[in-house]
C-alpha cells in the first residue's frame, strides 16, 4: 500500500514542527508549509495525498488556499483545521471542497483518523477514475491515442 503523504499548512512554526515529528513517528510522510502560497508551491512539486489546512492564516487565508488547491489539484484531499467552532466557516470549507474539518485543539489520534478517511476517499476516487478511463479505452482506443 502506498504511504500516505501529508502536508501541514499553518502559520505557527512550532505547531508544524512538533506535529510533523509526531506524524513521522506515527509513520507518515509529512511536509509542512507556513502559508497558502508555499503550500501551493510544494503541491506542484510533490505528490501529496492529504493537506491539513488551518482556516485562519495571515496573507492568503485557509478558504482561499483551499479553493486554489481544489482548482489546481482536484484530487488532493483537504482537511480544514479551525480554532473557531463556527458552523459557518465549516460549511464554507465543506462547500469549497474540503473533505472534513477538525477543531483545535485536536489530538493526534483524531487527526490521523480523519487523514485515513480522507486517504481512503482519495483511493476510491482514483479507483473510479482508473475504471472510467479503462472503459473509455475499451470503447474507443483511438481517442486514448489522440489524448496521449
Amino acid at each position, binding site marked *: 500500500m502506498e504511504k500516505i503523504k501529508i502536508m501541514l499548512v499553518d502559520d*505557527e512554526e*512550532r*505547531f508544524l514542527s*512538533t*506535529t510533523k*515529528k*509526531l506524524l513521522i*513517528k506515527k509513520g507518515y510522510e509529512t511536509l509542512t508549509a507556513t502559508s497558502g502560497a508555499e503550500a501551493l508551491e510544494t503541491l506542484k512539486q510533490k505528490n501529496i495525498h492529504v493537506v491539513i489546512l488551518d482556516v*485562519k492564516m495571515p496573507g492568503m487565508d485557509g478558504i482561499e488556499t483551499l479553493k486554489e488547491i481544489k482548482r489546481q489539484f482536484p484530487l488532493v484531499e483537504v482537511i480544514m483545521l479551525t*480554532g*473557531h*467552532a*463556527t*458552523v*459557518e466557516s465549516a460549511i464554507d470549507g465543506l462547500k469549497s471542497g474540503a473533505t472534513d474539518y477538525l*477543531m*483545535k*485543539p*485536536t*489530538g*493526534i489520534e483524531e487527526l490521523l483518523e480523519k487523514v485515513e478517511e480522507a486517504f481512503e476517499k482519495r483511493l476510491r476516487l482514483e479507483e473510479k477514475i482508473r475504471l472510467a478511463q479503462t472503459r473509455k479505452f475499451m470503447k474507443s482506443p483511438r481517442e486514448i491515442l489522440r489524448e496521449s
Partner: protein
Amino acid sequence: MKPKPYGALKKTILTCMILVPFIPFILVLGIGYYNFTASLEGATISTMKRIVEDHRQMIESFLNERSGDLKYILDSYPFDVLRHTENLQRVFENLRKVSQAFVDLGIFNADGLHVAYVGPFQLTGRSYGQSPWFQEVIKKGYYISDVFLGYRQIPHFIIAVAKEDSDQRWVIRATIDTHRFNELVKSVRIGKTGEAYLLDADGTFQTERRSGGTLMQKDAERYRYGTSHEGIKTFIDNDVQGQTYLYATTWLKDKSWLLVVRQEKSDAFKSLQNATYVIVMISVLGGAGIVAVAFFLTGRIIRRMERMDAEKDQLGQQLIRASRLAEIGEMAAGFAHEINNPLQIIKNEYTLIDMILAELKEKGQLRETEDVTELQDSLDQIHKQVERCATITQAILKFGRKSESVPQDLDLPAFIPEVTEMVAKKASVHGIAIKQNISQRLNLVHVDPGQLQQVLLNLYNNAIDAIIERHGSAGGELSIEADAISNAHVEIRVTDNGSGIRSENLKKIFTPFFTTKPVGKGTGLGLAVCYGIIAKMGGEMTVDSQENVGTTFSIRIPAAV
C-alpha cells in the same frame, strides 16, 4: 428604578384640572346667580308695587264711595228735610245699609251750627264755624280729615261734603268707623310679615300697624319716607329695631296720607334665599366633584407615566443586556479562538513528550524510578488541564457563535415531557420528585426544538444542582408548569426547592461567565446562552428566587401565528 420627580408635574396637572373647569363653573354660577337674583328681586319689588297700587286704589275708592254716599244724600234731600233729626235718622239707617263704616251723621248750616245729628254722641247745637275742617269744606266743597281725637277723645276721622243751594249753603258730615277703616287698610297679606298702614303728613299712624304702632302715635321711621312724591317709591332699609324691610310707599288723598306696605326683607326674598342655598350647594358639590375628578385623573395619569417609565427602564436594561451579551459573545469568541491555537501546540507537545517517554521506556533507556512516575503524573495533569481549557473555549465559542436556528411548530404538551424524561433518571437517583403540570390546551409555538431543549435541560440541570446542594439525596422537588398567559404567549415555569439564589446574585444571573459553581464545574455561560436563545425567539426569561426556599425560572415565548 429610581423614583421620578413627578411632584411638580402632578401639581401642575392638578392645578390645571381644577382651575380650568372651576373658572367657567364659578363664572356661570356667578352670572346665573346675579341674573337670577336681580330678576327675582325685580319681580318681588314689582309685586310689592302692584300690591301698593291695588291697595291705594282700594282705599281711595272706599273714601270716594263714602263721600259719594254723602253727596247722594245732599242731592236727594233738601236742607229743610234733613234738619229734622227724625228724617236724618231714617236717612242714616238707609246709609248704614250701604256701609257699616258710618258711625254718625250730622247736618250743619252755613254758620257751622250742628243743626241735626244722628249717632252715639250728643252733638246737636254745637258750633263748628271756626273749626278748620268746616272752613276747608266750605272752601273746597268736601273734606276728609286726618285721624283725630276731637270732643269725643277717641280716634276718628270725618268726611264732610258741602252743598250750595240757591238760598243757602249747608254741610253734611259723617264719622267713619276707624276700626273698620283700620281693618280695610291692614287687610293686605303678603308672606308672613307683610303689612300695610297709613301715615299722615307728619308721620302719625292713621291706621294700626300689625308689627307694632298704635293709632295716633308718631311712626319712629317717619323720616325715612321722605317728602311727598309722585307714584310709588320702593326701598330697603332697617327699622328702629334693626330689622331690614322692603318698603313700598305711595301718597294718596291729595298727598296728605302716605300708604306704606312693608315686608321683612328675609321674608320678601325668601325664594331668593332658597335659590342662594341651592346655588351654594351646587357650588360645594360641583367643586368637590371637580376636585375629586381632578385628583382621580391626575393619579391615573401619574401612575400611567410611572408605569411607562418603568417599562422604558426595563426595555433599556434589556437592550443594554442584549448588546452587552452580543459584545461579550464576540469578544469571547475571538478570545477563545486565540487561546485554541496555543492549546493545540501544548497538546501536541504533550503528545510528543508522552510518545518519547514511552519510546524511552520501551528501549529500556528510562528506568521506572519515582521521578519518572512523578513526571508521568505531571504530564497527565498537563493533558487534563488542556482538556479543561478546551472545554471552556468550546463553551465560549458555542455561546459566541451565531448559530442558525431552524424553527418549527412545536406542541409543548408533547415536547416538554420528552425533555423532562431526559433528566428523570438523574433526578430519581438524587431523590427528586418531578411534578409536571402542563396545560393541554396550549397554542403551538414556532421555535427551534433543539434550542428549546437546550434551554430546558440547562434549567433542569441547574435546578437539580441547587436541590442537591440543599437537600442532598432526599426531599427534592422539581416542578414544571406550562400554561397560556394570553392568546399570544405561552409561559413555561421551572421551579425547584433548592438552595435558591442570593438577591445580590439575582441581577447577575444571566451575565456571561457569572457562576457560583465550584472552579472547573461551570463556565458561567449556560444561563447567558439560554437568555440569548429565548430573546432571539422573541420571548423573555425571568427569574424569581428566595434563598433556602427555591427558584423559579419563567420563560415566556410567543405562540405560533
